[in-house]
């Protein structure tokens, strides 16, 4: 059996492969932790499977009681985006807190000097 892919599938798959290659590079230069590497590689691999074999998303859609496979992808993407925005907010809060600690340390040490 020979598969013939639609142009959109080829473009999406190539983009996702490019994304996986970036994740690998980030792991190599140690800017990504192993947990983050596994998360992003897993996510992009699932996306590649969904692009190459869209009928699999229909099976999941049937099991979840959603009409179409593409709807599953949209719903999952929205949930994932919400989660990532929330994580980014927490990361930003941590950065703000670290910055404040630094500013406070400088302020108190300046006070000590004077």
């Amino acid at each position, binding site marked *: 059996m020979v598969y013939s892919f639609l142009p959109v599938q080829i473009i999406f798959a190539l983009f996702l492969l490019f994304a996986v290659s970036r994740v690998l590079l980030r792991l190599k230069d140690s800017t990504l932790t192993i947990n983050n590497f596994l998360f992003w590689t897993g996510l992009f691999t699932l996306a590649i499977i969904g692009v190459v074999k869209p009928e699999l998303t229909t099976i999941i859609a049937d099991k979840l009681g959603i009409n179409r496979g593409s709807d599953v992808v949209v719903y999952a993407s929205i949930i994932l985006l919400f989660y990532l925005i929330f994580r980014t907010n927490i990361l930003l*809060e941590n950065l703000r*807190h670290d910055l404040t600690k630094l*500013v406070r340390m400088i*302020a108190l040490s300046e006070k000590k000097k004077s």
Partner: protein
Amino acid sequence: MKTLILILPAFNEAQVIGPVLTKIKLAVKKLPTQTELLVVNDGSSDNTLKIVKKSKVKVITHIINRGLGASLATGLEYAEKVKADFAITMDSDGQHDPDDILKVLTPLLKKKADVVIGSRMLDNKQDMPFLRRLNNKAFNLLTLGLFKITTTDSLSGFRGFSKKAIQKIKLKTERMEVSNEFFTEIKRNQLKFTEVPIKVIYTDYSMQKGVKPGNIFAIIFRLLLRLLR
């Protein structure tokens, strides 16, 4: 003699901070404590620092603006470092009457409380503008819902702390939500808490400051982030 650090967080308060400091300096002379006045200049871009320095008051400067919560935490950390017996925080916009410092200090001196909140709602409800009162009620309900603590003024910036409270309270929030975070810390550290009535002086200037009614959602979100961090 017991020592007291009077903390005034200030961000761009050049318009009013000079007269405010003069009044406070007069009031602290009457206190039964050895009092040190400390301004935490939170990265002000106006002449606040210059005016404070001219007033010959101790000042700690944040090199960049970090918010009200961060300034209060800096002040409390200083109080802990110098082993102060008490710390009192006041707004630097002139809305607090320096003569009320003694009212806030008294329960601490008598060891009746670890944290004292100067409440604007106990004595002069009629003075508080309607929107402010409504806003305050909403935040009081939030405090009750989140921390199971009943307060009449969760947004008051006039607070007193015992040595135990100074050592135990660890603030993590950086902005206006700090007012609610104090109640998290009171609950977490099981600190004795009381309220005393204070006067409030509303001016056009002070009305521009403080927590606005629309901020409640942002504050809830930031408090949530604090819990999940």
